[in-house]
């Protein structure tokens, strides 16, 4: 099913929200209000948004170190996200997690994860729980091309395939793992070629075309809901930023490669599509939408700043559940 005009606008709004959220997070990180490390998803928004548009609210997702986009696409609250980045008590993790560990189990967002490949099996367990609950729930794992070379990828996909778990594995292939080019670390062109070895479908999609991602996701999700097992979906995409926002971080990627991908920015691509397909969408409308988003982001920063830092002794809480 192709996306309705309303859905397309919603997707555009989400993509722009991710972008604006991260631009602000990057600024405030460089300004010293956000600590540790920030990995930006900018340039890859179509993947999270296209996939999550195909999900039910009670479906579950898991993310990696580059998690803001997945959180927002699954419906996370910007205020609590920003508060977490600011290290405040009202953050999603009460300031214990930071950028690499935002989670909201109440909306089926099972967490960003700081260990590459760490989320693959955890998410597969969520898929097992969905299967056992018999509620046609689906679980989606987002991970990078780098993570696809980790053992957990293999073990998880193989188990999910054997058990026909309702899981969608989304490889966001941005051609780099930190400063190492993908072509140095795997010889096969497409990660999705690996699906065959597990007896499941492997599909490549233009990860910068949110509508294409959405359609591919719908099919895979339908398969999962129908009890036919997992799919490996590979979104070819690119990050616009260096691996992290650390000032002075070098970016070893070739300029031509960057330029070629920048020219296929998923947000202008969708704006253009909306303008052409629907006539009625205009640059003015986009600007108005963007202004609303910027106001939301500003509000999230105000929320974060108004929230207190946790008491130092709060470090001792939450080691164990009751």
């Amino acid at each position, binding site marked *: 099913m192709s996306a309705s005009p309303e859905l397309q606008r919603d997707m555009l709004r989400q993509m722009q929200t991710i972008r604006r959220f991260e631009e602000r997070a990057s600024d405030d990180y460089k300004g010293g209000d956000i600590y540790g490390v920030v990995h930006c998803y900018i340039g890859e928004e179509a993947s999270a948004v296209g996939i999550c548009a195909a999900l039910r609210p009670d479906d579950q997702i898991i993310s990696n170190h580059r998690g803001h986009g997945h959180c927002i696409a699954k419906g996370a609250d910007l205020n609590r996200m920003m508060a977490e980045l600011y290290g405040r008590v009202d953050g999603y993790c*009460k300031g214990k997690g930071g950028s690499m560990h935002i989670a909201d189990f109440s909306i089926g967002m099972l*967490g960003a994860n700081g260990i590459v490949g*760490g989320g693959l099996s*955890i998410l597969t367990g969520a898929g097992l729980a969905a299967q056992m609950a018999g509620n046609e729930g689906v679980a989606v794992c987002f991970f990078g091309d780098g993570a696809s070379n980790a053992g957990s990828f293999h073990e998880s996909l*193989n*188990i999910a395939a054997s058990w026909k778990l309702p899981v969608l594995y989304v490889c966001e292939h941005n051609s780099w793992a930190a400063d190492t080019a993908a072509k140095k670390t795997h010889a096969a062109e497409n990660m999705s070629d690996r699906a065959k070895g597990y007896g499941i479908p492997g599909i490549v999609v233009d990860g910068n075309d949110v509508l294409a991602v959405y359609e591919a996701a719908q099919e895979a999700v339908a398969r999962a809901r129908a009890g036919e097992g997992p799919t490996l979906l590979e979104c070819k995409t690119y990050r616009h930023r260096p691996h992290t926002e650390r000032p002075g971080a070098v970016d070893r990627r070739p300029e031509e490669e960057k330029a070629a991908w920048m020219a296929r920015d998923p947000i202008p691509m969708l704006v253009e599509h909306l303008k052409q397909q629907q006539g009625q969408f205009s640059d003015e409308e986009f600007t108005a939408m963007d202004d609303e988003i910027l106001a939301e982001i500003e509000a999230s920063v105000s929320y974060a700043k108004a929230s207190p830092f946790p008491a130092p002794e709060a470090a001792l809480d939450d080691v164990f*559940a009751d």
Partner: protein
Amino acid sequence: MSMREISYGRAGMEALVEEMRRDPTTLHLATDAPPSLVEEFGEQRIRATPIAENAFSGIAIGAAGSGLRPIVNWSMVTFCFVAMDQIVNQASKIHYMFGGQQTFPLVFRSSVGGGTSLAAQHSQSPYSMFMNLAGLKLILPSTPYDMKGLLKSAIRDNNPVLSFESTRLMGLKGEVPDEDYTIPLGVADVKREGKDVTVIALAWLVHEALAAAEEMEKEGVSVEVVDPRTLFPLDNDLMRASVQKTGRLVIADEAGPTAGASAEIAALVTEDPATFKALKAAPKRVCALQVPIPYSPDMENHVFPNRKRIIAGIREVMEAG
């Protein structure tokens, strides 16, 4: 309470089966699906996994975070090193790093120790590696009674619990109540009362310590044998109280001493000023030699502590002060 004699291994199985009957959200993951379990609970709840400990341990974490109560059996503890990322970086930290928003009730069972000529890759007692982490509970039962009661508590606990089960004790028989019972995590057990020296012993060494105590009694030395039973939470109060009473401490562990549970117990006891004052002699660790475990039986036996070495340790602390 009416009692039955069953083995340590059987006690573990009973705990598992009874808890799986009690709570339909439990499920079992292991490379082997025991037919008796499959028959009773079905293939959905008794899953035979591929040899992929890392993934099926992670799957257990994810399932736990989604409302189930998985029980994983790694079999030999050495197989769990394949899964260490999931244990250390995920299971032990996941409740904390997400600000406590979700609970992860799950149990990882494994067998520890040596004495079976299986050599270095199948003989290890690495529980202390998990003690330096925060976020895991650790049980180490020494009798059928403790096994059943502790494992039930572990399955009912809302946190990841590692159950270290002694290979040498699998066939050991002991009394177990017919009724349902649990043993709270964090409560040590005085396996024998005494007044001259405290032996804090773990798992198999509890029995060696009891044998040593018998022996020493003949010489008029009264030995108290304390079994911590859980390594986290660790019952400091009981251990310290015993040492304050006796003034002497021997620690017996099937693992090597270095940064082992025995080191932690020695440190806990000596760093407490009141207990330190009460100590009449330096504490003594009676542990495995700090080597990988060799295959050939005489060499293997030489590596492990036993009642004779515990007796020597007791004599040493008795003579020292």
